[in-house]
């Protein structure tokens, strides 16, 4: 499919008379691929190995290796955690939520197994907190406080790519009405559920067997009534049940109420299917945006008649591929990553107009690292991650050998090893993450973040020259040339240019004592960590 992607993107560029940028260099590629597929820049060793590899198919091989690594599953779990919860926090606190670790583990396991997207969505919607294996999946409901309105809106936005309460589409009254009926159609699936918190195992969902969804237009004061209905689909009337047989567990007892016919389970069954308008398109668009920085429909949750896709034919082909391949997320990302379109340089061709055209995918966009990518990349660049792993291994070798247990999956081992590093850098996520409940938008740097990177007592320890860190390595290199190379490969995953090497040389030469030299190296490291080249995925 990657060839088809390139052909369709090229076709549109030809129509717009745009010359695309060249395919990027190995150094740019290796950084981008690691960031996009594993959520972190490569180590200096990984970067060096890739640059020195002479094989013609090394890009394809790297993509495959990264997609098979445990970091892929952990990265995708972080990405989909943020996408699906938008960093919301359950209003009722921890007792009415599932622990973050349980939720992340559910997602990581799903991506490690390459669980098809339709199955993931089914599980998110069907989970009720009673099944251990799906305990984490309940998060989708719980962070929205099991509030039917919030859920209806977000089911539309996140699974169908349409914001049915969308304020932006109210120019056309015909669209209004259409949206509102769709909105209440989804709402009707969800309006009977509520939180049933009183179990030792945590929160569960309860559901009743009766309700009637009516709505009044806030725009025209017209009212309507609807049974559960997916956009573009038929009304799904409740089955006629014999009087007294509406419930498996009746409301009022200590147990959660369970209806004989669950509208919510009907939604979980009906929504994640190729027939559902918007379901395949939404995930194709979102996965595309994950690698290309911008959706074919943009913003991602605003598909409507006045906001058509930039490349309709391409979007249709992508969604068709997903349906044909059983919603294979990993396979989809592999195809996109293999395309020249993904591998373009972020520097425009020299003869092109300065303004890169909007949505033509001719030049790679500059994207901000997510707070999570930034965290892991800062830890990687400074050598903190490696130092931490080395210490853990030293501890493990000293400890009594454990009795042989069933081997843990690789993602689980890695997640456990990462825990301490996550705790140490929690303040960074707090400083860089957006407000709860707001979708991640484009790169929007704000002043608090700059203050954090300059002055925070929680950030500065990353820049200490403890043995085993990058700074310690740099201190031990007596010549400026190798020091410059080690620094640039570690932080920016590329070798320094002649100018850059000369700048490093000048600064080190000016240092008269080893303390001054140490400070010059610290300034170089810190300065590069604060550079736009580090802060952006390019």
């Amino acid at each position, binding site marked *: 499919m990657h060839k088809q992607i390139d052909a369709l993107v090229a076709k549109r560029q030809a129509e717009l008379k745009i010359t695309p940028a060249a395919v990027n260099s190995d150094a740019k590629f290796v950084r981008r691929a690691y960031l996009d597929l594993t959520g972190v820049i490569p180590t200096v060793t990984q970067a060096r190995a890739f640059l020195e590899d002479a094989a013609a198919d090394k890009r394809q091989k790297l993509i495959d290796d990264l997609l098979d690594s445990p970091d892929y599953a952990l990265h995708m779990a972080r990405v989909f955690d943020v996408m699906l919860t938008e960093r919301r926090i359950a209003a009722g606190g921890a007792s009415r939520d599932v622990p973050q670790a349980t939720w992340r583990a559910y997602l990581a396991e799903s991506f490690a197994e390459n669980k098809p997207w339709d199955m993931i969505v089914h599980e998110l919607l069907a989970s009720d907190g009673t099944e251990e294996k799906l305990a984490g999946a309940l998060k989708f409901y719980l962070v929205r406080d099991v509030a039917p309105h919030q859920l209806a809106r977000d089911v539309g936005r996140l699974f169908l790519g349409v914001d049915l309460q969308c304020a932006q589409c109210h120019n056309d009254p015909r669209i209004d009405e259409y949206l509102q009926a769709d909105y209440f159609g989804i709402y009707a699936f969800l309006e009977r559920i509520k939180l049933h918190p009183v179990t030792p195992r945590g929160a569960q969902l309860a559901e009743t067997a009766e309700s009637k969804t009516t709505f009044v237009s*806030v725009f025209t004061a017209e009212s309507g009534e609807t049974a559960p209905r997916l956009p573009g689909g038929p009304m799904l009337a409740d089955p006629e049940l014999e009087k007294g047989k509406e419930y498996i567990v009746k409301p009022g007892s200590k147990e959660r109420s369970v209806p004989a016919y669950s509208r919510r389970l009907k939604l979980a069954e009906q929504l994640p299917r190729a027939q559902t308008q918007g379901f395949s398109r939404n995930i194709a668009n979102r996965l595309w945006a994950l690698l290309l920085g911008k959706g074919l429909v943009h913003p991602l949750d605003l598909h409507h008649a006045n906001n058509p896709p930039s490349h309709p034919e391409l979007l249709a082909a992508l969604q068709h591929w997903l349906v044909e391949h059983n919603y294979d997320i990993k396979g989809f990302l592999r195809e996109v990553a293999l395309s020249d379109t993904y591998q373009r340089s972020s520097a425009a061709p020299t003869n092109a107009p300065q303004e890169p055209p909007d949505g033509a995918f001719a030049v790679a966009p500059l994207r901000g690292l997510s707070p999570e990518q930034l965290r892991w990349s800062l830890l990687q660049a400074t050598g903190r991650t490696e130092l931490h792993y080395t210490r853990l291994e030293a501890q493990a070798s000293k400890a009594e050998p454990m009795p042989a247990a069933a081997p843990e999956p690789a993602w689980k081992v890695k997640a456990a090893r990462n825990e301490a590093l996550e705790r140490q850098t929690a303040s960074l996520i707090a400083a860089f993450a957006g407000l709860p409940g707001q979708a991640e938008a484009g790169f*929007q740097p704000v002043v608090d973040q700059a*203050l954090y990177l300059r002055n925070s007592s929680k950030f500065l320890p990353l820049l200490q020259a403890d043995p085993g860190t990058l700074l310690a390595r740099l201190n031990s290199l007596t010549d400026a040339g190798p020091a410059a190379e080690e620094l640039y490969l570690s932080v920016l995953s590329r070798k320094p240019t002649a100018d850059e090497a000369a700048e490093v040389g000048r600064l080190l030469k000016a240092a008269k004592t080893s303390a001054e030299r140490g400070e010059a190296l610290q300034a170089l490291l*810190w300065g590069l960590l604060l550079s736009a080249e580090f802060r952006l995925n390019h």
Partner: protein
Amino acid sequence: MPARKSIAAAAAISRRTCLQGAAAALGYGALAYPLRAEAARPLRKQLLLLFLSGGASQFETWDPKPGVKTGGPFRSISTSLPDVQISELLPHASKILHRLTVVRSVNSNIPDHFQGHYALQSGRIVPGYPVLGSAVAKLLEHADDVLPGYLTIRRDGPKAYTDVGDAGFLGAKYEGVRIVNNQPPENLIRPAAVSSALADAVDRIRKSADERFRQGRDDRPIRAYGATFDQAAALMQRREIFDLSKESASDHEQYGKHEFGQHCLLARRLLQAGVTCVKVTHFDWDAHQSNFYWHQVRCAEFDRTLVALLDDLERRGMLEHTLVVISGEMGRTPQINNLGGRDHWGRAWSVAMAGCGVKPGVVYGATNELGTEVKDKPVKLGDLFHTYLRAIGIDSSAKYEIDGQVNPVADPAAKPIADLLA
């Protein structure tokens, strides 16, 4: 809707112009906000929102109904306007009512804290729009701004409905920077372990790296990122704008040493420093029980500080370019419940304004005898939003053009209230 491409291009160009300006201003960051006497260009219009969170009772403030069954125990008193009376709980305000603009006929119809906080600040019911402070910060932005455009001041504590998602589609840059308990933003001081030589070296290395990196690239995100470090430097250098010890003892006395007085004093100081928009939240108006006791307590604090603040703004010449808005998310019910409280109410209540762009001494609209309905000149929340914008010189029929999306700045179904505009 106009074609997407041209809109996106226009937005892109204006962003770029703005950022180039920001870079050009670096050399004189400290002078970007000269004192009034030194100002070289017309002063920027500014906005101060005093938000009465929880919902103040219109009966015990701007629209008293003494002697009727909904009126409660307090009397009404004469004011500096002939034939206009307000509640006796606002004795100081009563003496300057000729300088205020009061709307007694607000029908927002939202008896809910969460929705009300959003709707009264954004002028909308549909979600996703920027609140007043974010909108004004964006719409009055100057090319060489280094300070944030919008700051919010509140006490620590109830978080739930006080900070609604602020900037909406305008993005993080226009979110209100939160000042909690008058504490300045975090990380304003360079740690002792970092020498100024090291900090300068880091900055030089960062800048030369960015200069190389931007060659041949779309440099908007690169410049936007660099600008945050310039803003950080400006805030570090000017952190005295958060330092109330620099204010005179008599100002502390006048504003009041309680929380709200101190928050208003900081608000004035920030406006003086050049911040476009400040919101101060005054809490505990949600009097479902003992409404009359609570309003005595709340009004005593609010009334005196409000007048001290307006006098101070006037004396300093700031009121002519600063609009002060006094509003909560709703009013309170005419019915007095069996706990002596008044409950949530949006059908007929009051807001007030003073300063830039509004007609002083106007009392607009009226409620009926029992205060249960608006009987004259009904005002919708969207009308208020239009009016606030127009008062500070913003065309409220304008549209945002951001990221290919066009959105009206204010609800096109509402309009400014001409009778209130100076």
